């Protein structure tokens, strides 16, 4: 009895998926639930398990191809059994995979790799050729080394760099169907109508064209979409984290002993969750006609990856103690970086936190993920001189641990006063943090 393997639905809004690689070859036996192929979708990258045990009889969609959810991608059956005759709808006759299209070098401006090595400096060669292991991995995954930013000597792409690039879904950028034609807006394949078409970009002599990865393209579309729909306004508050910092230091090791990881983000998440409970309009969605007050507080926390970003979601975040919250944040962050998130862990957010402060940003103006109506950006936390009034009424300067937070909110739904009350609530919670909550 043959079983069909289909492209699964990975998250509610995902319509298609790209097969990154097959983990099994035709003729190999597979166990039920054993991963047989890897996919990348708008939301996540994942390994897909076999629905039944048996022998992989046929692969109908090759690595590199993107197909709609529900498309038949393989057939599993018993050894010796033949796969059912391909139906007319089979993708077997489909256009060649993008990789194949890239085999012939495009005409036009010669890419850097075509240059002779003799005239290049050692530094140039380190950047473009890297090392044997990096080239081997690049070849296996069809990656152009030049599209990865390197952390090694002279900007060389190290083994770690390329593995991180692949982990972050970068390999799906592999098609390398680099066109030498001017880039046109329509080629983004985005469904977003911005209104004004992009002018073609003229190419200059030393330019390099890099097609957007799947993740990059999704981010691009979502950002344009949000900017187009929402009436973004930003408000910025300074928070005195001195008390929180003290509690963090005091409880850090006891949290660690219990498997938690107490950070400023834990406190921020707690304060945000509390404030969302008291200001339900901030924990809402907007569809252009209606305001939808969300029944749960699902907190998204953006995680920067080497290749883009992902926003894991902590569902019903108001159910959790500080300890549980710290564990969830650490766990989701770690699994985001190691590509282990399940699809439903990156969907359904009702409010989100982004933390550009870890890279040194003082404050930012984050874009609201649709269809939610607000996002909190956390700026860098540092020691600052502050004027404080002593008990006897005299002023003095003290060292305080401070940082800015910015709320990006949709003025269609949230008025300025409400937004400021919401952030004041967070500020008050943090500056007077209740130690009994620890």
């Amino acid at each position, binding site marked *: 009895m043959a079983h069909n393997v289909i492209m699964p639905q990975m998250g509610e809004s995902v319509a298609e998926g790209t097969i990154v690689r097959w983990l099994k070859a035709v003729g190999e036996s597979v166990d039920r639930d054993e991963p047989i192929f890897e996919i990348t979708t708008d939301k996540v990258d994942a390994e897909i398990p076999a629905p039944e045990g048996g022998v992989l009889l046929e692969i109908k969609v090759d690595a590199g191809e993107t197909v709609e959810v529900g498309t038949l991608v393989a057939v599993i059956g018993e050894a010796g059994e033949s796969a059912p005759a391909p139906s007319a709808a089979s993708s077997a006759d489909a256009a060649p995979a993008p990789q194949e299209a890239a085999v012939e070098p495009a005409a036009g401006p010669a890419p850097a790799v075509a240059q002779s090595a003799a005239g290049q400096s050692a530094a140039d060669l380190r950047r473009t050729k890297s*090392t044997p*292991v990096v080239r*081997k991995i690049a070849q296996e995954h069809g990656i152009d080394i030049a599209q990865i930013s390197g952390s*090694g000597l002279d900007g060389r792409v190290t*083994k770690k760099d390329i593995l991180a690039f692949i982990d972050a879904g970068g390999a799906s950028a592999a098609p390398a169907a680099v066109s030498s034609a001017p880039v046109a807006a329509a080629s983004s394949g985005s469904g977003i109508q911005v209104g004004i078409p992009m002018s073609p970009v003229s190419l200059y002599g030393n330019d390099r064209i890099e097609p957007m990865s799947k993740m990059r393209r999704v981010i691009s579309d979502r950002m344009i979409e949000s900017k187009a729909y929402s009436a973004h306004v930003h408000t910025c508050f300074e928070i005195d984290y001195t008390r929180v910092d003290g509690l963090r230091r005091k409880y850090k090791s006891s949290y660690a002993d219990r498997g938690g990881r107490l950070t400023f983000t834990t406190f921020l998440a707690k304060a945000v969750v509390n404030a969302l409970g008291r200001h339900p309009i901030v924990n809402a969605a907007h569809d252009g006609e209606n305001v939808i007050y969300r029944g749960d507080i699902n907190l998204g926390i953006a995680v920067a990856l080497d290749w883009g970003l992902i926003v894991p979601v902590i569902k019903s975040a108001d159910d959790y103690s500080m300890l549980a919250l710290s564990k969830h944040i650490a766990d989701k962050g770690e699994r985001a970086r190691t590509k282990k998130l399940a699809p439903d862990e990156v969907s359904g957010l009702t409010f989100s936190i982004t933390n550009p402060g870890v890279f040194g940003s003082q404050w930012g103006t984050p874009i609201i993920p649709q269809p939610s109506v607000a996002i909190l950006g956390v700026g860098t936390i540092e020691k600052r001189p502050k004027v404080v009034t002593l008990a006897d009424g005299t002023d003095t300067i003290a060292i305080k641990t401070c940082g800015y937070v910015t709320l990006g909110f949709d003025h269609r739904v949230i008025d300025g006063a409400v937004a400021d009350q919401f952030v004041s609530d967070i500020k008050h919670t943090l500056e007077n943090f209740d130690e009994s909550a620890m």
Partner: protein
Amino acid sequence: MPSGATYIEAVREALHEELTVDDRVFLMGEDIGAYGGAFKVTDGFRDHFGEDRIIDTPIAEAGIIGAAIGAALTGLRPVVEIQFLDFLSCGFDQLTNFAAKCHYRWGAEIPIVVRGPGGGGVGGGPFHSQSIEMYFIKTPGIKVVAPSTPTDAKILLKAAIRDPNPVLFIEHKALYRQPALRETLPDKSVIGQLGRAAIRRPGDDLVIISYGAMVHKCIEAAEVLSQDGVRTRILDLRTLQPLDDEMVLAAVKECGKVLIAHEDTRTAGLAGELTSRINENVFEWLDAPVLRVTAADTPVPYNKELEKAFLPQVGDIVKTARELAAY
């Protein structure tokens, strides 16, 4: 005082056990009997095992090794002590042209062990501090062992004595009485395996391949590197001929970056051979050029400060490893 045996006590224990269990085993060397050996490895052995089995010889290395080969041909298992391995050059012909070739030429097994202290770092000067391994590693037919710990010194010496081939067993004199190395030795039934390397410290950012006393400097360097966040694997070769290709190549595959550290001089040192094997077999796994830290291409200086400059130190290993990590 920490408990357990020192490196020299481990050598002594191995000899004592093998002399006890196998009547064919006997020792020959300069001053090993009445005096107990220049380093006192065999102190008291003559009284315990008798003059027939603990034999004092004239100062004539070619004669000692030649006599050992003759004894081996008659079925005995001689263990020869060379007072300082630098002096082995006097017995070079017997070892390389005769012992190493008997089995190839006539099918005759020569189960002899030539053992003694090698290496520097003790202010011994140019005639008492050299690393002599490459003269013999290059000669097919001789096994070469260079243990870095008391346990290895014991179990590998026992393995060498039981091996049917000529084995050169290089003890490191700077390790002989290092209190920090003391460890509980395995039971007399434990026999090591020649040709197997060991991982002394796990890590997968880069691997430092070494042997002998240099292993301990590499471990110290790895501790420093771990503060930079560099996880450094330390691979101790233990046997230099035959090399454990399997573990060396696996380490290169897993780490991608390789540093080879040895106390021997640079030109035609073991690092050169290892680098060639790595290039031939696992070039595609390299994430940086193979680098080496070695002694300078000069005789070993007598002056202690100069000797320190001549021998690779922890700081030298750290410096090169950092370059490699950042490559």
